[in-house]
Every structure is written in structure tokens, then in C-alpha cells.
């Protein structure tokens, strides 16, 4: 068995090296820019090999990410253990969820090869399975205070604070801490609120947000496959958003067909729930667009039967024509394969042109050549709806064929800053207006 794997690995590796040949893999031009509004969808295409392109990781050295004129960026914590999402607490402290989940078994020889390839684009540090608390003790913008708030968690990702209850979405359960303002260490181990679907856990991240009055929590649960290739039995309660009663832990399915809803947030004026979603791979360099969408109760967003409205995916058989026709078209397209993992709406006090809208962290692609994403973008809103194409906010995570960082969670700090977690360089960045 082992030898067979290795031999296959060698053969595929050789083929991947040759993969630049157009007959083997589809290559693409530079991204066509924003796909704001109603994007043109190219027909599906795939060569004999999926396009794979990941720039080699490198340290930041003297380099720094690039921010717009009038802003500065500073690393406020380094040497973390895979920071993913962050939460700004009422006293200005920042909580960082660190960890790495998943570990779905190899389904086909291809997964083995692709796994080796994708791991080249991630950090070699082991996930911390903990929450780190950062504090700016004297208000000068440097976070000298640093404590481990809680540890021995299971790949924590989503974070939400409701009153004095701190909710953490582990990869297998929603748990709760009693939080006291100013504390640097949880006073007791967490209490489990409810179990979350965790069998296989192909897409393991559990995103989390609380509504304005703190009554309900929403958890985003990703699919267990790219497009149903493990069979639909393992997709029960996957690719959905759950609504969970914060007090009782009772849950129900709020929306379905969202392949991997990696971040959730409420638009502050309309109190509407929004999500960023990672769409399916291996249909070509500019298909399927990832997206930002309002999440409507009871709506079906297509996965796996259809994408971007009623466009059927023929890889799923038997097809379900009813599901295809029922597919809701998302609100805002993001460049295909750019992997949005962070979402945060601005709060009052941000200067134009960032006065209304949402920041989105794009982790970056593997299934596209040349790669895309690897930046933080801003989507302007007007009247609680997207109102124009996305603009770059933090860039420069890739340069000279090297990757220095990969943005994950983005969090608006009410003090008028943006917190960006970077899980490749294990850094938390803070972007502030220059004074």
C-alpha cells in the first residue's frame, strides 16, 4: 500500500512539474479584476491536472504589507501558533484563536498528492489550540501585554462575546467561558453549549457570530468535500449555517447550500446576517466565484448541485433539478479561488472611503495559476448593500515569487483600526490611520 502511494506520488509529482503544459492543466491570465455585480461566468474547464500554484513561503525580513496612503501597519504579535480569528473585547484587549483542525482521510490517490502540495503553502508550526490575549497596556498602539487566556481547546476558530459570556467555536463543539473584563486567564474550563458536526471535517473551521441582542448565535459549518465526492451521506448538517439559542444551546438550520461559510458578520445598520463563502474548485481559473452574501433564513445557496444561481454542476450525479432551480444567487462576487476567510463591517468613525462597508481577508488560492487573493479587500456599502467594486486595503503578502503571509480573520477595532490575523507568518497585524 505504502509503496503504491509513493510510486503514485512520484508519478504525479513528475506530472505536476510538467503541469505548465496547457494540455495538462488550464492556465489563466491575471485576474480580470473585481467581479462586482453580476459576473460573467466562463464555461467550466479543467485540464488533465488541476491547476496548482503556491508561491514558496518566505520570512517578512525588512518587508511589510502595503496599506493605503494615510494608513500604517504594525505587527502587534508574532510567533503565534497559527492565528485564525480575532475578537476585540470591551476594554480593547484582543483575543486570538489559534489552531489547526481537519485531517480528513485521503479519499483518492489524488488527495495524497494535492495534500503534499497544499501543505507547502502553510506554516510548519503546530496549531496552538488556545486563545491568546493581547493588551495595549499604555495606549501607545504596541501590545506589550500577552497572556494565554485558555488552552487545550480543539482547533478554536469563531469567537463571540455576549455580555459576560465568551463563546468559542471549536472544530467539534461550541463552548462558553465566563468572561470578566480585564482578566488575562479564564477562571474555569469551558462549558460545552452544543456539539458541532465534526465527522471527517474536510472543511473544519466553525465560524461564529452573535446577533445584536445576544439571543442567537450563528455558526457556519463547511462541507465535507469539494463537490460531494465522498457521497451525500457525510454531508448531513454540512454546508449550512446553524442558529443556536445562546441560553439553551438548542439549534436549528438557518440556511443551506453554503459550501464553506468561513466568516459571518452582522451589517450594523440593517442588522442583517452576512457571510463570506468559499466556492468549489476544479472548474477553471475564473469559476466558481467566491462570494459575500446576505444570509436569508431558509434560503438554499446551491452547494453541491448548482453555483451562482441556477448553474448546474454536472459533477454531481444524480442531479437535483428542484435544488438547482431553488438556488439563490449571492449578492457580491469575489475573485474565484481567492479564499475569503475573514469578514468585518466597519463601525462609525472610519473615514471615507472606508466609512461604510466590510473588510474581507483573502487567504489566497491553490487551484489557480497565477495565484490570486493574498490580501485584504474592502467592499463599499450604501444603504446596507454593496455599492461598488472591491478595493485593495492590505496587499504585499506576495512578492518576487515568495509568499510572506496569508490573511485570515479581519476584525474592526472600534478605536478605528483593523486587526488582521496572518496564519503563514503567525503574526497579528494592526492597521491604523497615520497621524
Amino acid at each position: 500500500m505504502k509503496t503504491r502511494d509513493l510510486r503514485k506520488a512520484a508519478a504525479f509529482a513528475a506530472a505536476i512539474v510538467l503541469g505548465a503544459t496547457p494540455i495538462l492543466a488550464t492556465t489563466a491570465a491575471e485576474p480580470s479584476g473585481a467581479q462586482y455585480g453580476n459576473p460573467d461566468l466562463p464555461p467550466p474547464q479543467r485540464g488533465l491536472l488541476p491547476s496548482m500554484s503556491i508561491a514558496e513561503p518566505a520570512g517578512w525580513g525588512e518587508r511589510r504589507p502595503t496599506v493605503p496612503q494615510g494608513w500604517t501597519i504594525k505587527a502587534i504579535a508574532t510567533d503565534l501558533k497559527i492565528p485564525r480569528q480575532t475578537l476585540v473585547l470591551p476594554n480593547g484587549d484582543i483575543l486570538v484563536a489559534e489552531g489547526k483542525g481537519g485531517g480528513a482521510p485521503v479519499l483518492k490517490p489524488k488527495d495524497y498528492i494535492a495534500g503534499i502540495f497544499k501543505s507547502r503553502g502553510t506554516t510548519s508550526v503546530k496549531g496552538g489550540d488556545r486563545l491568546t490575549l493581547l493588551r495595549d497596556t499604555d495606549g501607545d498602539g504596541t501590545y506589550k501585554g500577552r497572556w494565554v487566556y485558555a488552552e487545550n481547546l480543539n482547533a478554536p476558530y469563531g469567537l463571540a462575546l455576549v455580555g459576560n459570556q465568551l463563546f468559542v467555536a471549536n472544530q467539534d463543539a461550541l463552548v462558553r467561558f465566563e468572561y470578566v473584563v480585564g482578566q488575562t486567564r479564564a477562571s474555569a474550563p469551558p462549558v460545552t453549549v452544543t456539539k458541532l458536526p465534526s465527522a471527517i471535517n474536510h472543511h473544519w473551521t466553525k465560524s461564529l457570530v452573535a446577533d445584536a441582542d445576544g439571543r442567537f448565535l450563528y455558526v457556519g459549518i463547511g462541507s465535507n468535500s469539494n463537490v460531494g465526492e465522498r457521497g451525500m451521506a457525510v454531508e448531513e448538517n454540512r454546508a449550512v449555517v446553524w442558529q443556536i439559542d445562546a441560553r439553551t444551546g438548542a439549534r436549528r438550520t438557518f440556511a443551506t447550500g453554503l459550501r464553506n461559510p468561513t466568516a459571518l458578520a452582522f451589517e450594523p445598520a440593517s442588522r442583517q446576517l452576512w457571510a463570506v463563502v468559499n466556492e468549489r474548485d476544479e472548474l477553471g481559473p475564473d469559476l466558481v466565484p467566491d462570494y459575500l452574501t446576505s444570509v436569508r433564513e431558509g434560503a438554499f445557496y446551491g452547494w453541491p448541485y448548482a453555483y451562482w444561481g441556477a448553474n448546474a454542476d454536472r459533477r454531481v450525479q444524480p442531479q437535483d433539478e428542484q435544488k438547482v432551480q431553488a438556488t439563490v444567487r449571492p449578492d457580491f462576487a469575489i475573485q474565484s479561488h481567492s479564499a475569503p476567510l475573514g469578514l468585518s463591517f466597519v463601525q462609525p468613525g472610519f473615514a471615507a472611503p472606508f466609512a461604510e462597508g466590510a473588510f474581507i481577508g483573502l487567504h489566497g488560492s491553490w487551484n489557480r495559476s497565477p495565484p490570486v487573493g493574498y490580501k485584504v479587500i474592502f467592499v463599499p456599502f450604501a444603504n446596507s448593500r454593496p455599492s461598488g467594486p472591491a478595493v485593495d486595503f492590505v496587499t504585499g503578502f506576495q512578492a518576487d515569487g515568495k509568499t510572506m503571509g496569508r490573511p485570515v480573520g479581519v476584525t474592526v477595532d472600534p478605536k478605528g483600526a483593523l486587526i488582521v490575523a496572518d496564519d503563514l507568518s503567525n503574526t497579528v497585524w494592526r492597521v491604523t490611520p497615520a497621524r
Partner: protein
Amino acid sequence: MHAVIAFSSVPLFLGALLSDWAYHSNQQVQWVNFASWLVAGGLVMAGLALLWGAVDVLRSAANRHRRGLIYLILLLASFIVGFINALIHGMDGWAAMPAGLILSAVVVLLAVTASVVGLARFLRRAA
């Protein structure tokens, strides 16, 4: 001897063909996942036989016989088509259909023919 190894790829390729056929008829996706591994296994055996056979032919002039070359070419063909088939089987779900099913059938034909030619030579020499 390498003809025996070549022959051992036949049940693996045949298994892949049957699995593909099962997926094609009942659309249970696990069948195509089985097929993917069986194709990979068949490729390992065919590859080993190919290497050994090539060394054998190159080493002894006596083996540079027309039938020996036909055997080798058939084996090479089944390996190449098998490799393309493995790539096709790397696609998700129904994307591997119907190309995967057709290629699996071609590979079985090639592997069986190669094995028959190879084994015939082997038996004649043993007699």
C-alpha cells in the same frame, strides 16, 4: 517472469473497469473512488513489468524478437493509457465520466493482450 507481473495488473484494471461501470449505472460515487485506487494499483504492476521487460529485452539479443517487442509496446501502451486514466480519475465525481469508463475498458484490453502475448512466449520457452 515479468509477463506474470504484467498479468497481475489485469485483475486490478478489470476491477477498475467494473467499478467504473457500477458508478456509471448506479451513480454511487464511492465506486469511482474505488476505481481510482484500482487504476493506481494496476499502474504499479504494469510499471514494474514494463521496467523488467525493457531490461530483459535490452540485455539479451536473443530476446530482441518481434513478439518480444510487440509485448513491450502493448505493455507500454497500457501503462500510458492507464496513466491518463489515473489523471481522469483524479477529477471529482461525474467529471470522470464517461472518459474514465472508456479508458478503463481500453486499458483492460491492452493489459490482457500484453499478458497473453507475454505469457505465450514465457510458456513456449519453458516447454
